[in-house]
């Protein structure tokens, strides 16, 4: 395997279906990356209700013409995860599963997020295991961190770090 230059998508190198052995693989096929998120939310009278949001991202795949098995490349998986992250944030989906997804999209460990938000790591675990509701402000920050990461920015991360390290000297600023 050469590592010179851009590598072809790995599913193009499949010679036969790993499920049935057929060589009739359609490398221009499509499949779906699907993830479901359970959300617990408060209702009147101190009770709680649950809903499940299912996100389905349509991505390229190699699909067997004989048995229909679809093979996903790393690039297609990453693209599907990006689309799901974007939709999760756009729709403001809360709950532990979504919080965990967004944290991972941001490339952060539970401990790293806890330090950034000024809470204990057990608090992050409680959110993600639906033992405590994720508040709106935290959800917004998580969404911004995740979107920044998948779109190659560090704006929210930088701002959170600045909040934690106030300037110790006089800072001069001047309007243009």
């Amino acid at each position, binding site marked *: *395997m050469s*590592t010179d230059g851009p*590598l072809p998508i*790995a*599913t193009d*190198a*499949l*010679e036969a279906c*790993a*499920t049935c052995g057929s060589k009739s693989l359609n490398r221009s096929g499509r*499949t779906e*990356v*699907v*993830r*479901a998120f359970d959300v617990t939310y408060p209702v009147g009278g101190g009770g709680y209700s649950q809903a499940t949001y299912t996100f389905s991202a349509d991505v390229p795949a*190699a699909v067997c013409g004989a048995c229909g*098995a*679809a*093979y*996903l*490349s*790393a*690039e297609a*998986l*990453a693209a599907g*995860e990006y689309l799901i992250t974007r939709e999760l944030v756009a729709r403001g989906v809360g709950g532990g*599963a979504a919080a*965990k*997804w967004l944290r*991972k999209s941001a*490339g952060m*460990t*539970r401990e790293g997020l806890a330090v950034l938000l000024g809470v204990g790591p057990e608090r992050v675990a409680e959110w993600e295991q639906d033992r405590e509701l994720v508040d709106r402000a935290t959800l917004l920050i998580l969404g911004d961190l995740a979107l920044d990461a998948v779109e190659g920015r560090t704006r929210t991360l930088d701002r959170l770090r600045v909040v934690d390290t106030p300037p110790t000297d006089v800072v001069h600023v001047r309007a243009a």
Partner: protein
Amino acid sequence: MTPTEALTWIQGMFAANRYALTPHAQQRMRSRHIRFDDLRLAAASATRAVLQPANDRWRVEGGRDMDGDDLTLVVEVRADVLIITLY
């Protein structure tokens, strides 16, 4: 291929995104919410590869995901691509 050679080869293939996920692997990822980065980290941190003679697949063990949890990968090594079959 020795287990040590296999592990090095498999880790190199993962690092270069040279893998394809079977429908079964995709289903397991869906139910366990395993992410692209979990696969990458589990492969990179794996400590051994064990050949399963019954099906000629390698169990890639000792790796950890983004949360530090164990994540074992089962892969089939083809000429220019890894086929990930199970977790």
